Structure formats: structure tokens, C-alpha cells
């Protein structure tokens, strides 16, 4: 082994290999291109995969991890004289009760969804989703307020007719000029604009996109749609170090007892916390990575088969030469290392070129390249190969180079001096 290694890194050996590789330049280049392309694609896909993961993790990173959402659904078990399949709603009083009885809650706030309403400004108009929240909303879910302010507790308490407009509404209906403090007509009613909100995360929304949402005090939404004290969903954030699951348990039993829902009903009340979401995304990320490696390695493997094939042909073409070398004193190890070296050099040179080209190409696209177009475009966050992946890719390339040389080397070894000389 030592001997073979020494022979591989011998400059004379490299000279020999160079001579034989450059003898058929076009063929060598074409063969190398197979490996180059495989590595290039692998790097591209891994980088894009990283970008997508960066995007998702960036989005989730913005949201406090000890948060849960409470949804209502139809009951699934008959209980206390009620049939199953009953509709029910969380009430404002429930929220107060929960707040009073569960001290581990840091903040609790509702999201009350209204309809889509038409907003008019001169000859411009458009229809956007109405959302009612309290001042606590931003403590649970991140919102960027770029002008003015967000809804506060006074707005809620006094049921003020104030709205926060999404950035896209400002752009499309108000020509990008923020109508701060002005009155706008929405669904035939005048509201004062108090702020503009922008999406903080790219692809993680609750219900509607922040940029395209009209936000109001939730009490106002209840009144607009005759909801009484109904709340849509609850957002709960636990205090530091309190496991969200224990809060979910307490909130669940309070709501069930207040609404005559069987304690065994697992359908009527639904919680969704970030842990669950995170797990889904993690599984997704793992799936993406796995798929990329499988496809990438597959591409690379076909390149390696190409190399193996070409080196095999070279060996066949050089039967006579290898025989002569054996006759004049080449040891078997010398022949093997020459063939392995040829395969290794093609593969590694092409592989490193592919690696560099792939990384260079992704660097050219930049840190925030948008994948896709328009609304659904996804910004790739830092779409780069991390160092450890690059190293493992390099190791894979070297292994593939050696593997590709194995069969041709075995074939070369079977050539005896006498066979070659007989071929005359």
C-alpha cells in the first residue's frame, strides 16, 4: 500500500499519467465532463437545498418557540346531553378565565377573522382580508411596522375604527404613499389609518399574508360581523422555561369544561405549536437533503461509470504497451498504480472543477437569490455549501475515482507480457 501511495505521488508517475491522458485530449475532456457535471449539479442542488432550509429556518426562527395556537372544530363525542358534531366558539370570557387561571401564560391574544372587504382610494380599489387582533399580537407573532404604529390595547378597549394596512395594499391602492392619519373607506365605512405592516418572514403566515391584510382591533371585527364575543383562534405564549404542552393541557380542560365538551374529545379542540411545525419542517429538510444526495450521487455515479469505461478502453488499447512495460521490468503494482492514478486524476480534477464552478456559480447568484417568480418566489437564504459538505463531497469524489479505476486496473493486471508481444 505504501509502495502504491509513493508511486502515485511520484512526479515521474504523474508525467506518465499526463502523457497518456493528453494523448486523446477530446476523449479525456468529454469523460471528465461527466464527472464535472455530476459534481456541479450536486453542489448546485445542495446549495439550493441549504438556501431553502435557511429560508424555512429563518422564518421559524422569528417565531417564539414556546407558542401554541388554539383552534376549534366540531365536537366528535356526545356529552352532557349534547349531540356530537356541534359547532362551538371560543369566547372573550374564556380568554379572561384562562388568563386568570393559568399564571404560566406570558401572553394570550385572539385572532378574529373577518371577510374580504373592498378598500377604495379614488379610482383604485381592491379586496383584502380583514383581521382582528389585540395589542398583544406582536408579542407572539412577529410583525414589522414600517410606519405609524400597530393596534394597541386602547384601540381594542374603545373599539376604535382604526386600521393597519399591509404594505402591498399601500403600494397597490395608495401608489406607495402611506395615508397615515387619513381616513380610508373599507366596505363602505371610514377608518383612520394608523400604521403599515410588513411581513417579517417570507413563507410563514397565519391565515393571510401580512402584506395583504387589513388589521383592526378584534373588538371592532366582532361588532362588524355580529359575532358577539366569539373569538376565532387563540395565540398563547408560555413564560420562559414552561413547557408548552403543560399549558395546552390546562387550557384544554378549561375550555372543555366551559363548553360542555367531553374530556375525551380530541377533535373539538386543536393545538398547534411550533415544535410540531418544526418537526414537520425538519423532516421535510431531511427529505430534501436525502433526495439531493441520491440524485446527485446518481449523476456522479454515471460520470464515474463513464470514467471507468474510458479507462477500460484505454487499457484495452494499450494492451501491447502494458505488455512491453511488463517485459522490461514494470512490477504489477506499478501498472496498477498507473491505471488507478489515471482514473483518480480525471475524476478528482473534474470533480474539483465542478466543485469550484458550482460554488462560484452560486456565489454569483448571491445571498438572496429568488427561486421562482412573482408571488410564490422563494428567497434562498445563504445558498452555500457548508465546509463539511464540501469536504465530504471531495472525499466522495476521491472514492469514486478510486472505484472507477479498480476494474480497469484489474484488467491491466491480467495482461501478461507474453500476450502483448504475441499480438504482433
Amino acid at each position: 500500500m505504501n509502495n502504491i501511495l509513493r508511486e502515485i505521488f511520484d512526479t515521474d508517475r504523474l508525467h506518465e499519467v499526463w502523457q497518456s491522458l493528453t494523448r486523446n485530449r477530446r476523449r479525456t475532456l468529454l469523460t471528465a465532463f461527466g464527472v464535472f457535471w455530476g459534481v456541479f449539479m450536486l453542489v448546485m442542488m445542495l446549495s439550493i437545498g441549504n438556501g431553502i432550509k435557511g429560508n424555512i429556518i429563518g422564518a421559524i426562527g422569528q417565531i417564539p418557540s414556546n407558542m401554541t395556537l388554539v383552534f376549534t372544530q366540531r365536537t366528535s363525542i356526545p356529552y352532557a346531553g349534547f349531540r356530537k358534531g356541534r359547532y362551538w366558539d371560543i369566547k372573550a370570557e374564556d380568554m379572561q378565565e384562562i388568563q386568570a387561571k393559568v399564571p404560566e401564560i406570558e401572553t394570550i391574544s385572539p385572532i378574529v377573522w373577518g371577510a374580504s372587504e373592498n378598500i377604495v382610494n379614488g379610482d383604485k380599489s381592491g379586496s383584502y382580508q380583514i383581521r382582528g387582533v389585540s395589542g398583544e399580537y406582536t408579542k407572539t407573532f412577529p410583525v414589522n411596522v414600517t410606519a405609524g404604529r400597530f393596534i394597541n390595547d386602547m384601540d381594542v378597549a374603545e373599539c376604535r375604527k382604526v386600521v393597519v394596512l399591509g404594505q402591498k395594499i399601500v403600494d397597490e391602492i395608495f401608489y406607495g404613499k402611506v395615508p397615515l392619519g387619513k381616513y380610508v373607506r373599507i366596505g363602505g365605512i371610514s377608518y383612520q389609518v394608523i400604521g403599515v405592516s410588513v411581513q417579517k418572514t417570507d413563507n410563514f403566515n397565519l391565515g393571510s399574508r401580512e402584506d395583504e391584510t387589513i388589521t383592526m382591533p378584534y373588538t371592532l371585527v366582532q361588532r362588524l360581523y355580529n359575532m358577539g364575543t366569539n373569538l376565532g383562534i387563540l395565540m398563547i405564549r408560555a413564560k420562559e422555561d414552561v413547557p408548552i404542552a403543560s399549558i395546552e393541557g390546562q387550557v384544554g380542560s378549561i375550555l372543555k369544561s366551559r363548553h360542555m365538551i367531553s374530556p375525551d374529545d380530541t377533535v373539538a379542540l386543536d393545538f398547534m405549536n411550533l415544535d410540531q411545525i418544526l418537526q414537520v419542517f425538519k423532516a421535510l429538510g431531511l427529505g430534501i437533503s436525502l433526495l439531493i444526495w441520491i440524485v446527485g450521487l446518481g449523476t456522479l455515479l454515471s460520470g464515474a461509470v463513464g470514467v471507468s469505461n474510458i479507462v477500460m478502453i484505454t487499457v484495452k488499447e494499450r494492451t501491447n504497451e502494458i505488455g512491453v512495460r511488463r517485459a522490461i521490468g514494470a512490477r504489477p503494482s506499478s501498472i496498477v498504480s498507473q491505471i488507478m492514478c489515471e482514473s483518480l486524476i480525471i475524476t478528482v480534477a473534474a470533480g474539483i472543477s465542478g466543485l469550484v464552478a458550482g460554488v462560484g456559480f452560486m456565489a454569483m447568484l448571491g445571498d438572496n437569490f429568488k427561486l421562482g417568480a412573482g408571488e410564490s418566489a422563494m428567497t434562498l437564504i445563504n445558498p452555500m455549501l457548508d465546509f463539511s459538505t464540501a469536504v465530504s463531497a471531495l472525499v466522495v469524489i476521491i472514492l469514486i475515482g478510486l472505484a472507477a479505476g479498480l476494474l480497469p486496473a484489474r484488467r491491466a493486471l491480467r495482461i501478461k507480457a507474453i500476450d502483448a508481444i504475441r499480438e504482433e
Partner: protein
Amino acid sequence: MIRLENIHKTYTGGTSLHVLKGINLNIEDGEFLSIMGASGSGKSTLLNILGLLDNYDEGAYYLDDVLIKNLSEIQAADYRNKLIGFVFQSFNLINYKNALENVALPLYYQGIGRRQRNQIALEYLDKMGMKDWATHLPSEMSGGQKQRVAIARALATKPRVILADEPTGALDSKTSVEVMNILQRVNREDGITVIMVTHAPEMAAFTDRTIHIKDGIIDSENDNNKF
């Protein structure tokens, strides 16, 4: 130098072919020997066995008083490299290497450094009158020139024995005589044992002794110096 005792060789595969049926031969150090025989007589097989390119089934082969039997590939390669130089009918130069590189190749397998290797190679090319062709590829040379380069390659490692398999088989008569003169000179001046397979009596006449092989045994031999 070389002693063969009752060498047998059978090729198996399909129908088995008993090629050598008991060869007994002594070759003195510094002798110039030719082996003659019809095609299929076993003369090339004998040369291959002498050159450690092929194994024999029975008997004993002593090269430089060492019994050559069941050698590993590595041992055979090393013996070939150190003791034996080959000259082939079809020259067998490596076509993408120039004359100098071809001659230097066996020295490369001895682990000699490039500078020294090229120096030795150039020296032998000069000896063969091919110094000016050092940087030429085999495709740019005539048959006689190629054979001279091949002889230079065979000599570069200072072997004890040169084995030549029909060295003039691909050459015209004038060039053949030139090559034979070179081999004679190598034999006489450097004292290297030369063993040549040929089917041309006029080439065999250049050698000291000729053995005739027929049906796998030595049929007759004659001392050429008597005439």
C-alpha cells in the same frame, strides 16, 4: 549462464498442445546463440521461457545459477529488469514516447532519477548512432532506426542476456545486416550473452552457434565458427 534441463511445456485450453518435449541446453556466458525452427516448432515458446515471460511445466531452468521456478510476478519483473533485455520483431516501442523516453523507461522501473536516467539513455542512443533522434517519436523513424532504439532500450539496464525474437523479421536485408552487426558488436564488445530466434539462415550465420528445434526437441545444433 543458462542451463535448461528437460524442459516441458504444454498449452492447455481447448485441445492441449505439448509444445516443448524435453529441452536440454547449456548457454555459456558471452555466447551468441541462434535458435531456428519452423513455425510451431516451439522456438518462440522456448524464448518466452528463457525471458521469464512464460512458465514451464517440468524440468529446471537455471539463470545465472539461480533456479527459476514458480516466480512471483514481482520477482519475475525484477529479474527481467535486471538481467534480461528484450528485442522484438515489431520493435514494441511505446508510440507516444520519444526515443529517449523509450530507452529510459526500464531505468525508470529501476527507480533511477530522471536526470541520470536520461543521461544513460542518451549514452546508449549515441552508441547505436541514434543520438540525433533522441526527441523523435517512433512514428518518425524507419524500421532499422526503431530497432536500434529498441536495442538501446534493451542495453540500458546493462543486462546479462539479450533475448531477440526475430529482430530482423520486419526489416529489409540491408538493414537486417546492420542490426545483426550491432548485435554482434554488443556480444563481442560488451560480453553480453545474446540469444536470437530466427528462421533466416543468413541471420543465424552471424551467431556462434545455432540450435534447430523440431517438434519440441532440439533436433540438431551446429557451430557456425567452424565454417
